[in-house]
């Protein structure tokens, strides 16, 4: 770059998406065809969709595992599975759903939507974005590598030592899970950093923090939480692996190690994590639901604040997973109280959503039905959490199917239902076509009825004393009928999921063409064509309110957002960065072009972990060296990105 290009006043102009200016941007931003282009793309929309698709593949895998378990549990004393097979199935199911589905699917939506909602051309760090996807994919394959050869993880998703130690679990089942989790943690961390920087920097001018849609708050909070929580679990798994293979003694009671240290490290991570995997989903409801109620969300500030506070308190409740471990009652009381207090921010959101529907005017769509039913499921899942938060009651409820009911109501209720709702809502944006509303109703009712049929009776068998993680049960405990109902419900729910997939498959080809804003929604993503072009916005919009596309009807602010007219930024791939709070324009960012370096780096990381799992040290060293070389090449200061001294 020459000196003159290092500083400039952006040209302000109006362009539409058919103009020659748009075609120029298109050529600059589009992903090249061919394999290299496919591996090298840094387009957040492409990466977002890959995330969503991959996560759904894992949802189906985890779901099929669950269905097999439900066949085994449908009746007492069944022999469909051996105990060992059952143990691997429930552990892999938990691992898949909690790690490989729940978080990545939300990262997918956030990746796809953030720049569009924020009025930006890409995430702040597109290459890091690609890296986080590839590492996620590699870690998923890595973690499944044992399962497919019959050596899947078998110590439960929270993997308590000493049962997960080499003494009691000598195979490589746990090694793969442990190292895979560290690899997966890298992906989450990298993704979290990218979300943080994007939220603080890569927004449209004028989108100050009091104008951020709740989805942004949700993912931002989740990312901040992850950055502080994930190290705990990565460390725990690394220490466990060292105990197993390198002879350390962290968790090994025979040498004064502490099995309870594992539980602390795991749940210090685990509880913030369960909020991280729902807050973005709650955000998607907070943004989507009002569209179908034809009014802004009730209590925006309260809901945004509640989102953040949930996470903050969420760091102080982890011991509620350890109420029965014999800790002193004083400590237990504190964590019990904190777990009750955390109900309050959740309640704020629940009342805000209900009030939004009550005071709004409802437009019935499938997306709306998923969103509205989510509120009810959240309440059911929430109140079962409220019961387990009480120490003496939890001494009875813990490790029974009551807990299993709780976790499915919250995970499916607040993650899967909003995600499916979000698919109905944003699918038109992503593909340009509407999902079928008729199939959508069938989809909704089978999922909703199937879900409640499958998981509500789990509360009852839980109260009747059925422990979790048992591969079979005797006839005479009064658990039989409920288990049969659960299994039938599980299959009905699966049919619902199949209907969703069918709807997607059909609508991709034959769906009604959507147009830019089929729901008449207020946020910026709906100001772009469907699907949006690679550069998102032909000019950089300027934002003056929370609802840029409803301004003319709401009269909320004296200013007006400017969407057609804005900065051109067409001197190669460019975007704008703003100040963190007020979103004043700060700098013009030079955006990187497609590159396969992230893909290669993820291969190195995978090789590193394969080397560790196989205790093959030359591979570890080779992978580290190769990774370092790639990292240096990646970070090498480039004139085109404005990273080097000006040349006159």
């Amino acid at each position, binding site marked *: 770059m020459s000196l003159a290009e290092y500083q400039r006043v952006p040209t302000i102009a109006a362009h539409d998406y058919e103009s020659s200016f748009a075609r120029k941007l298109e050529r600059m931003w589009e992903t090249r065809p061919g394999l290299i282009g496919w591996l090298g793309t840094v387009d957040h929309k492409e990466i977002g969709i890959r995330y969503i698709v991959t996560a759904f593949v894992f949802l189906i895998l985890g779901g099929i595992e669950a269905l097999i378990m439900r066949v085994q549990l449908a009746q007492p004393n069944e022999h469909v599975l051996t105990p060992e097979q059952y143990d691997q199935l429930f552990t892999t199911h938990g691992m898949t759903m909690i790690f490989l589905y729940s978080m990545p699917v939300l990262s997918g939506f956030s990746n796809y939507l953030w720049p569009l909602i924020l009025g930006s051309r890409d995430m702040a760090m597109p290459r890091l974005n690609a890296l986080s996807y590839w590492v996620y994919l590699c870690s998923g394959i890595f973690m499944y590598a044992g399962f497919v050869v019959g050596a899947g993880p078998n110590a439960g998703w929270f993997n308590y030592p000493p*049962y997960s130690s080499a003494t009691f679990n000598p195979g490589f089942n746990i090694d793969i899970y442990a190292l895979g989790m560290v690899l997966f943690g890298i992906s989450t961390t990298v993704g979290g950093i990218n979300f943080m920087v994007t939220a603080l920097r890569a927004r449209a001018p004028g989108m100050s923090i009091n104008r951020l849609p709740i989805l942004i708050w949700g993912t931002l909070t989740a990312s901040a939480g992850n950055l502080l929580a994930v190290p705990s679990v990565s460390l725990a798994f690394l220490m466990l692996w060292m105990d197993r293979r390198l002879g350390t003694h962290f968790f090994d009671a025979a040498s004064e190690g*502490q099995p309870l240290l594992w539980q602390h490290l795991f749940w210090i991570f685990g509880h913030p994590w369960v909020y991280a995997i729902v807050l973005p989903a709650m955000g998607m409801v907070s943004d989507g639901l009002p569209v179908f109620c034809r009014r802004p969300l009730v209590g925006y500030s309260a809901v945004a604040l509640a989102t953040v506070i949930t996470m903050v308190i969420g760091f102080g409740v982890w011991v509620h997973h350890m109420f029965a471990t014999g800790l002193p009652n004083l400590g237990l*009381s504190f964590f019990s109280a904190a777990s009750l207090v955390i109900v309050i921010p959740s309640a704020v959101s629940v009342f805000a959503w209900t009030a939004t*529907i009550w005071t709004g005017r409802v437009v019935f769509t499938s997306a709306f039905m998923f969103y509205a039913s989510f*509120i009810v499921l959240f309440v059911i899942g929430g109140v079962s959490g*409220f019961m387990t938060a009480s120490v*003496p*009651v939890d001494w009875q409820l813990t490790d029974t199917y009551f807990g299993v009911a709780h976790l499915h109501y919250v995970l499916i209720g607040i993650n899967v239902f909003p995600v499916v709702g979000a698919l109905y809502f944003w699918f038109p944006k992503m593909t340009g076509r509407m999902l079928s509303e008729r199939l959508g109703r069938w989809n909704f009712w089978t999922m909703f009825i199937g879900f*409640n049929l499958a998981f509500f009776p789990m509360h009852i068998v839980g109260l009747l004393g059925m422990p979790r993680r048992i591969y079979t049960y005797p006839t005479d405990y009064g658990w039989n009928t409920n288990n049969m109902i659960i299994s039938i419900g599980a299959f009905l729910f699966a049919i619902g999921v199949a209907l969703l997939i069918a709807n997607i498959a059909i609508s991709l080809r034959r769906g009604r063409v959507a147009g830019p804003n089929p729901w008449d929604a207020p946020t910026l993503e709906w100001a772009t064509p469907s699907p949006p072009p690679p550069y998102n916005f032909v000019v950089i919009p300027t934002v003056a309110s929370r609802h840029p596309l409803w301004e003319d009807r709401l009269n909320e602010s004296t200013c007006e957002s400017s969407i057609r007219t804005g900065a051109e930024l067409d001197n190669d791939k460019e975007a704008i960065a703003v100040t963190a709070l007020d979103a004043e324009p700060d700098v013009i960012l030079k955006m990187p072009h497609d590159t396969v370096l992230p893909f290669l780096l993820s291969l190195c990381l995978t090789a590193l972990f394969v080397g560790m799992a196989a205790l093959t040290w030359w591979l570890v060293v080779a992978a580290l060296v190769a990774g370092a070389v790639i990292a240096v090449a990646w970070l090498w200061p480039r004139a085109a990105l404005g990273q080097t001294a000006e040349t006159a």
Partner: protein
Amino acid sequence: MLSVALTLLVAATAPALADAPMSYLTGYGPRAHPVTALTWGLLAISVAVMVIMTVLVVLAVLRRGRPRIVVDADGRLPVDHPAGGVNWIVIGIAATSIALLGSLIWTMAVLARVAAPPTEAGLTLEVTGHQWWWQVRYTDAEKPSRVFVTANEIHIPVNTPVRIRLRSDDVIHSFWVPALGGKMDVIPGQTNETWIEADKPGSYPGRCAEYCGVQHANMAFSVIAQSEDDFQRWWDHELAAPPSPANDIVASGQRLFQVRCGACHAIRGTGAGGIYGPDLSHLMDRDALAAGALPNTPAHLAGWVADPQGSKPGNQMPYLALPGPELGKIGAYLQTLD
């Protein structure tokens, strides 16, 4: 409508409560009563919250109070910003806070009440969790001669608080007798304590509640509460040596047992003193075999000894490939252990 469906479901399953021995919705004794009451109390709050919120959401969706939507001239839907929504949050949070505060106080009160037995414990048991059975040691500080070890069946006197010291021999387990109170984890490297007290004679089933490996599903035990006299009689009987063999078959069964099984199992008053497996003294007095995996009938016992891996796959007692006649003799011997 959802809540109606759910209420129906609950109603349909409520009769099941009667024949659900592991249920903790009914409790016995001073350890369980306060917890059972609290459980019902929080359950009631929860169901109320669930019903109220479901009704509100359904009403909100179906309500016809506001003007219908009319698409405006340029094809867009109307939007407005009605006031009043925020009151929902204010009122809702106020009500929630009251419910939470009440629950918190009740919780703390119960916690304080069940933390320790109301009177000094009359008996201390040392229970050790093994993959996948329970060892129980009866202690007596005054008369060491009355100390003995048994497995998987715990007898206690009624109306006496019993202190339980929990240790693990391998991985984490959890000691749980639903009708008598909550769980306490059994963690290697530390000794946890809990207590139980039954106010009615009877048999209370218990189970290991922390996942501990392939046979976690079959790690049950039972607590049998007896009157003080019956309990003392039982204890005295446990201390008694087995009868000397009445015939040759039993005698050779005993010899075979010593050789084949004695390395792992103990029978008080004989040469068999193994500690790897459950103590088999007075085996015939127990209701179940192998931590609840099988009922204790002669046929099941014979089947177990012949092939322990068949009914409890993965358990720590190996398949011993004993020839038929030996099995018969050992079986006959075991039958005399009452």
